[in-house]
């Protein structure tokens, strides 16, 4: 709460409609973070497209078919992945994707964020699915449902709101990531035209402005922080609303 209100206090002064839609300008000429907002949204979208299906299916695999040797190896790897510092993920993607393609790109940034999301989503999905009572599975099996239909039709829907919460956590976590984006999506002063080129993001913008020597940019960094917080909060609320318990 204290953090939130402090950010709001410092950020509100530089906030304006123009700030939200304009691209960055040189010091003294105002400018905004419109491109960074769009860039962050695109990066999040990319990471969700890659990370959520992989993470959720890994979690489902671990909980429903997690008895074997292979599964315990996967579980160990996922746990290890959770503990990897995000900057290491960034360097990894830099080596694997950026150097291969020989330029920074939104794709590389999305992949880096997805790599951070996957273990979080996988483990929360696994835990949430484990919470589904065994009696529900038996009830479905007793009606002649094959295992995969039990998983798809009964277990996953029953755990859906928990899985969505896990996905939310992961999204909230990666939307604040800066380090892995520094050498993958890099940053840009323009609106993105395609995903195969460097792209701006709120966090990198905040970082660049915060380490600059200019008071105006500092104020803009605070304002951008406020915008980022608001965005994360509203994503949270929207998903809460969409996945509210219907039954």
């Amino acid at each position, binding site marked *: 709460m204290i953090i939130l209100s402090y950010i709001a206090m410092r950020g509100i002064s530089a906030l304006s409609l123009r700030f939200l839609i304009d691209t960055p300008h040189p010091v003294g000429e105002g400018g905004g973070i419109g491109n960074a907002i769009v860039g962050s949204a695109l990066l999040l979208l990319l990471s969700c497209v890659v990370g959520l299906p992989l993470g959720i299916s890994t979690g489902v695999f671990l909980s429903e078919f997690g008895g074997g040797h292979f599964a315990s190896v996967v579980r160990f790897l996922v746990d290890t992945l959770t503990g990897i510092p995000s900057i290491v993920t960034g360097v990894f993607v830099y080596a694997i994707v950026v150097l291969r393609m020989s330029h920074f790109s939104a794709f590389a940034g999305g992949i880096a964020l997805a790599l951070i999301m996957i273990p979080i989503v996988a483990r929360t999905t696994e835990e949430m699915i484990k919470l589904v009572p065994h009696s*529900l599975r038996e009830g*479905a*099996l*007793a*009606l*002649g*449902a094959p295992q995969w239909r039990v998983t798809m*039709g009964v277990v996953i829907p029953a755990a859906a709101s928990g899985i969505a919460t896990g996905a939310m956590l992961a999204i909230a976590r990666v939307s604040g990531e800066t380090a892995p984006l520094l050498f993958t999506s890099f940053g840009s002063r323009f609106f993105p035209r395609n995903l195969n080129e460097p792209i701006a993001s709120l966090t990198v913008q905040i970082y660049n402005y915060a380490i600059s020597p200019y008071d105006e940019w500092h104020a803009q960094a605070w304002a951008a922080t406020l915008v980022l917080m608001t965005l994360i909060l509203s994503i949270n609320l929207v998903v809460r609303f969409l996945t509210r318990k219907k*039954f």
Partner: protein
Amino acid sequence: MSTPTATLTARFAVPHKGALPERATKIAVAGLSFYYGRAQALQNISLEIPERMVMAFIGPSGCGKTTFLRTLNRMNDVIPGTRVEGNVSIDGRDIYAAGADVVELRRKVGMVFQKSNPFPKSIFDNVAYGLKINRLTSSKSELEGRVEEALNDAALWSEVKDRLKSSALGLSGGQQQRLCIARALAIRPEVILMDEPASALDPIATSKIEELIVDLKEQYTIVIVTHNMQQAARVSDLTAFFLLGKLIEVNATEKVFTAPVEKLTEDYITGRFG
């Protein structure tokens, strides 16, 4: 001490059911043993269950009656480390034979569990689930018809017909259990296994379920596990008494409760142990 017969009839109001009709054997079990890992839960059980009758399994906790019930539709398969020996056949077909279709078996042998376990879906979707996954209906109106029929058979239709789209979890405990019965009935099984279906219910809900069981035996073969001997006496035609994984006695319910052959059975139903 008076004769055991007199004591027992005084204790149990066993309805006089007269001679049991001759019926073909639906389920035949021969030499069945069951293991959880190394622990043997059932020892060499042989038993025949005639069609369109109610057979009750009684016995103290841990005697294997639920385990036995679950071998009849292979629900124990989902527990890792279990092993079955012996033979169970339904309509003359060995259900543990290599290549036997478990899904088909469970469609034919429905089950109602001790704790009601409605899916977190609407009332309608709960009953429709089995129909949908087994593709038993070809049109929406047929599906709706089958759901209504199943709810009617489970004596629940009048209570839920105006709120089919609302959550099944909003129903009372007794209604939830009848919903689970409707769910099992919807796919028109031939046998219904009930694992203490009324153990968590109040007396009114219990008597509804019991009436239902008596109605259902017109069409279905019913096997019910119960803790409650009075309940077995009220609803069943045949009773099997289990103790420590062994089948001690099986006979017409009236016989078992009034003139048991085995000393152990008599001791159990007169309350000397258990």
